[in-house]
Each structure stands twice: as C-alpha cells, then as structure tokens.
C-alpha cells in the first residue's frame, strides 16, 4: 500500500481507483484500510516525498501535463531536474523543522500497563528527542490520580483510558474541564481472565452470581464486559457483581479467590496466567476487533498555551505508534519497556502480550498477532460509541449531543493534518462504522443504537 499519492509515478491511475488498485475510489480504500500508519523507510525520505510532491504539483498543476513530463524523462531524471532549480534539500529541512516548541521539558504521566506502550517506548527509543522534546514519563498510581495530576497541570499530557477525556470534559466524576484526545494509544489489548477453577464454565450464560473486576468506571473494560454479559442475557447491574479494582490487585484477588474473573488491560491478563492463577477466556478483540483501549490525552488549555509543544508531542506519539504497529519491532519494544523504570514486569510476559504468541493458562500456546495493535487515529465514531454506552448504563442522563462531544474531544482533524505532514495517510472521514459482537454500529444514529439494546439501565 502506498502511503501517499506519489506524483512522480507516471502510471498512477488519475481518474478513479485508489493507490493500491483494489478499490473503486481513494475514499473507499481509506475506509477499508484500518491501519494507516506504516512509516516509509526513513524520516528524511518521508519529508522528501511530501516536499517533492508539493513542488511537482506546483510546477505542473495539471495531472496530464505532469504525466507527460514524467513519461518522457522518467521520475528520477525529473526529480534531478527539479532539484536543479529548486533547493529540494533545503525545503525538506525547512518543512521538517516546524515551529519550535514553546516548552521543551514536558511531563507525561502513564499507568504501567502495555496499553501505554507508545508513550513509554518513546522515551527509551528516542521518539521524543527526535521531535525536539525532553520528556519525563512518570509512572502514576491510578486512574483517578492521573486525572487529578493532569488537571492540576503537574503533567502536560497523560495516558488515559479512551472514555476518560470524554468523561472529564462532560464533568462525570470530575469537574468539567475540556480535554482532548489527539491520538489513540492502542487498539485491542485486553482480555477476560477467569480463575482456573472456572475452566469448565466457558459459556457466559452460566456466570450468574460471579464477581468480576474492572479497572475504572469510565473505561472500555467496563463497557466491553457489560456489553459481553448483556449479549449473554445477563444484566451486569443485577446478575453479577462488578468491582472497580486496580489491576495488580486483580491478580492477588483472583489468587485469593475473592473474585472470579476480570476484564483487564494487558500485561495483567498475561501476568495472571504466568503466575498460574487464571486462564484467558477470550481476548477483547473477539468482542470488537480493533476497539480502542487507552488514549493519549491533553487539556485544551495546554494546546492553546503551547501549540507547538503539543504538535511535537503528538508527532512523537504518532511516530512511536507507527513503529509499534510493526510486528518485527515488538520484541525490541518489550525489552525496552520492561525495566523497573517503566512497566516493571517480566520480559516474557510483555513479549507474550506484544508478539501475540502466548500461553492461554489451560496448557495451550495460542497465536494472535493482533492481540495488541497500534493505530493512532482518533476515530470520532469511537467516541460516539463510548457515549452510547455511557448513556446505556446510566452514566449520562438526558439528551446527548453525541457528534458535538465526539468532535470536541477526539481531535481527528488536527491529527489528520499532522499525519499528512508526516507523510502518513490518515483516513478521509473521522467516522467509520464497525461491528461489536456482530452488531453493526452506525455512528450517525446513536440514539437508535442505544434504544436497540434490550438490557440497559432504565432511564
């Protein structure tokens, strides 16, 4: 798949079809490809490409004329000729050198789970430094603390659960402060783990009366577990017990027989298996393939006071996320983020999570390369879905302007711009439809979606 439209390619289909040739139009191609952050060979190449295409287009605004020129001299000659009278190298350097960050020394908070991979790895692997920042990534004790410290401005930006910035912006469980999500940290990457004694209870219909742990009320973990239980006909508010428990305590509680299972972020799921106290019932990816998990969040105030720092920070995260999306880099990443300074977990556990070849806790070894995946684009339809679930479970009451909230919090437009500048190709629209357990979600009709569920909190 080509990353961006290459104007130096004389055989590119101008009329219709997409760059890969598999789809009817470029828009359709964009819709189909979920992951769009594969980087080109190197940073310089990427900017060079962006600048060269801009210059080429400026000189030959008409596609046909440009094509004729390219056909007659060949792309490399054309480029060489171009650089004769246009200093491509200088322009590239200028382009890469965007506005200097207002604030170079930044603090970014994270919770030690593999969902924070791009935020964490960007420090040891030098992605922050590459974009001119000096970032301290600070391990934080829990979601409520990370929320308060970010609101207090002790952190410039932070790792948050994907629904948290929406909840904060709406004033749910906090003062209403406008927060934003410029990038999704990771997609998939959670699982339902049950205590080993329940290994014969694989049908959720038999789970009545069990006790489950989730990490936070405003989390994908909560919404996905509730969704899964409700699909099996259980009312998560009355038929089972859901408790908010910090992830490390989940493993200890599972060992102590105090809970029967949990839907938790990885590496906690794998850690329970590694310690022999539970097994993987299913990966959250089996509920909704490609669902967002954690997000990268900053307050709107930070964006307005330090727009260049914010842009550089987002660039570093998008860059790191692109690097993490490649399977061949995952082992190196596991090693980089395992030490006590970062996640503080055994390397084998992180490797199993990130490479997707893992022990399932029942004696088998399973492989799923997409167990955790990385795609930074903040789809606004994700935010709409989260809002529908907040509505469904009574976290928000009354009328909700789904679209307005989603667009205020999930900064798809800004991220799209940044990604384009970086030579990546973000999707054209910020809304896509997807299926959760086989049921299609149409982001244009959120109210109907909420109403379509039989099991929900009466409002």
């Amino acid at each position: 798949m080509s990353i961006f439209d290459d104007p130096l390619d004389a055989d590119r289909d101008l009329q219709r079809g997409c760059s890969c040739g598999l789809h009817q139009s470029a828009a359709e191609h964009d819709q189909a490809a979920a992951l769009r952050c594969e980087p080109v060979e190197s940073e310089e190449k990427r900017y060079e490409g962006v600048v060269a295409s801009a210059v080429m287009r400026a000189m030959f605004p008409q596609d046909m004329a440009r094509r004729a020129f390219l056909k007659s001299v060949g792309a490399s000659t054309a480029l060489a000729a171009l650089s004769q009278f246009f200093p491509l190298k200088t322009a590239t350097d200028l382009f890469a050198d965007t506005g200097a960050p207002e604030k170079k020394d930044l603090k970014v908070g994270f919770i030690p789970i593999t969902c924070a991979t791009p935020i964490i790895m960007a420090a040891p692997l030098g992605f922050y430094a590459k974009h001119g920042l000096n970032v301290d990534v600070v391990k934080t004790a829990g979601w409520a603390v990370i929320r308060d410290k970010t609101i207090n401005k002790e952190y410039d930006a932070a790792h948050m659960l994907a629904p948290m910035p929406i909840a904060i912006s709406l004033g749910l469980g906090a003062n209403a402060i406008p927060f934003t999500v410029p990038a999704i940290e990771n997609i998939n990457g959670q699982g339902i783990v049950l205590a080993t004694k329940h290994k014969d209870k694989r049908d959720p219909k038999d789970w009545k009366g069990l006790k489950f742990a989730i990490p936070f009320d405003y989390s994908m973990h909560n919404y996905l577990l509730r969704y899964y239980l409700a699909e099996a006909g259980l009312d998560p508010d009355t038929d089972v017990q859901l408790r908010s428990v910090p992830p490390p305590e989940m493993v200890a509680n599972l060992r102590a027989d105090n809970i029967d299972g949990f839907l938790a972020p990885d590496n906690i799921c794998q850690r329970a298996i590694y310690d022999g106290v539970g097994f993987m019932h299913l990966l959250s990816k089996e509920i909704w393939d490609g669902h967002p998990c954690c997000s990268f969040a900053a307050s709107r105030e930070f964006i307005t006071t330090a727009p260049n720092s914010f842009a550089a920070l987002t660039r570093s995260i998008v860059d790191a996320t692109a690097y993490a999306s490649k399977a061949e880099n995952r082992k190196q990443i596991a090693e980089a983020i395992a030490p006590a300074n970062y996640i503080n977990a055994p390397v084998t556990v992180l490797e199993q999570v990130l490479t997707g070849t893992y022990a399932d806790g029942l004696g088998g070894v399973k492989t799923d390369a997409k167990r955790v995946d990385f795609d930074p684009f903040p789809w606004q339809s994700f935010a709409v879905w989260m809002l529908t679930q907040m509505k469904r479970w009574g976290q928000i009451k009354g009328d909700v302007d789904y679209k307005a909230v989603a667009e205020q919090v999930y900064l798809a437009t800004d991220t799209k711009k940044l990604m384009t500048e970086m030579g990546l190709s973000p999707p054209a629209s910020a809304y896509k439809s997807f299926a959760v357990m086989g049921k299609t979600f149409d982001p244009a009709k959120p109210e109907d979606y909420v109403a379509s569920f039989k099991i929900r909190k009466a409002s």
Partner: protein
Amino acid sequence: MNSSFRLRAGLVSIALLAAFLGIWHLATRSAGPVATMSPEYAKLMGLTATQGKSAMPGPLDVGAKLWEHLRKPFYDNGPNDKGLGIQLAYSIARVGTGYLLAVLVAIPLGFLIGMSPLLSKALDPFIQVLKPISPLAWMPLALYTIKDSSISAIFVIFICSIWPMLLNTVFGVASVRKEWINVARTLEVGTFRRAFTVILPAAAPTILTGMRISIGIAWLVIVAAEMLVGGTGIGYFVWNEWNNLSITNVIIAILLIGIVGMLLDQILARFTRMVRFPE
C-alpha cells in the same frame, strides 16, 4: 548478673529469629514440577506455575534481593526507578517537613489552649472529630485543593501528626501542679516568664511524649500517602513492586520501614529522657 541477663535475652532473641526463618523457609519451599506441561508452554509460564513455587518468597530469596539493594542503595535510573536509599531519603524529608510544621503549630497552640480552660473546652469537639481521620481520606481533598502532589503528601503528614502533639501539650500544660504556679504567682513572676520557666519545663515530658507518638504516626502515614500519589519515596516503592507482584521487594520495604520507624522513635525517646525531671 546484668550482663549475663542481657546475653541470655539476646540468645533467646536469636533462637526465636532462627525458628521463624526456619519455618518460613520450610513453608515456602518449591513443591517440585507440577503436572505435565509441554516444554513450549512451560517456557512462557512463571516459576509458580511450573515449579509449584510458593507465591510467597522464602527467606533466602528475600536475603539475596536485600543484599542486591544494599550493594547499590543510591542508583538513579530515571524518574521511576531509584535506589532504596534515595527513596527512603525522600520519605524521611517529607516526614521531617510535615512533622516540623506540625510541631510549630501544635506546641504554641497547645500551650494557649492548655492555659485557657475555656478554649480547651470549646476546641475539644473539633479536635476529637479531626483526630481519627485516616490519611487516605485527606488525600483526595488535598490533591484537589492544593493542586500539587508532593505538597499534598506533606500536608497529610502535617494534619495527621498534629493531633497527638496538640492534645498532649494541652494535657501537659493544663496539669502542671497548681502549687508551682501559685508559688510563681506569689513571687510576682510575669505571665511570659511563668510560661517559660515554670510551665514549659514542667509540661516538657508530656509534650515530648506527644511528639514521640506523632513521629510514629507521621511515619505510618507517609507510606500510605506515597502509595497514593506515587513518584518517589518508600511508599511509592512498595506500590511499584506491588504492581509488579514482587512480594520479595514488598517484604524488604516493610522491613526497612520498620527499621527507620524504630530509629525515629528512638531519637525522640532520647529527647524525652533528656527533659525528664525527678519530682
């Protein structure tokens, strides 16, 4: 007689320790390989699952790890990984600051309240309500209003260690023998002079007992506070290792917390002995 008594007590202590370590060691031994596992699967699992190793570390594991920590107590691998010596230093500095602030407030205030029975009666309900509040209950409030996590931690130390000192000062000042004050009065000693030369020395042992209780509480509180706000300190270390499910490191931290707490208490005990007077 005295030295042989001490020797015997020491020997009993050592015997008890040895017995404790022995039982601990036996109780946490590996049970040998469990069940049958494919080697490929076993490679992905931890020792607890493959070797039947107890989830609780034995004394040898703890000893080895402790030695590792003691060999380099002051390393610094970035914001989230520092040596135990540095972590303890952070905690002690926080406790020291919060505690000194509490001393500065509690003793003059306690003095005032103690000398005025009216104030003492009027403030008593407030003190009694505030005294039993747990440090963890103060934390969210502090984080929300102070908006700085390290100052919040110091505030929590302050607010939790102030009450025993205040109450003891009030009690000490109020219960100075009436005869002494009356003697001072007949000698026409002024109020200030009376406070400093008669009441303060007479109340000092009680005040210092209050301070000794407070330092104990301050040290109790710091672990909880740091576990909650994170960042640095021995409490953060415990949380970080708990997060890693490393019971070995948690045990080491508990041991060190106990030792430091004992040292702090001994220092105050020495001060208490210094101000004691024979009646």
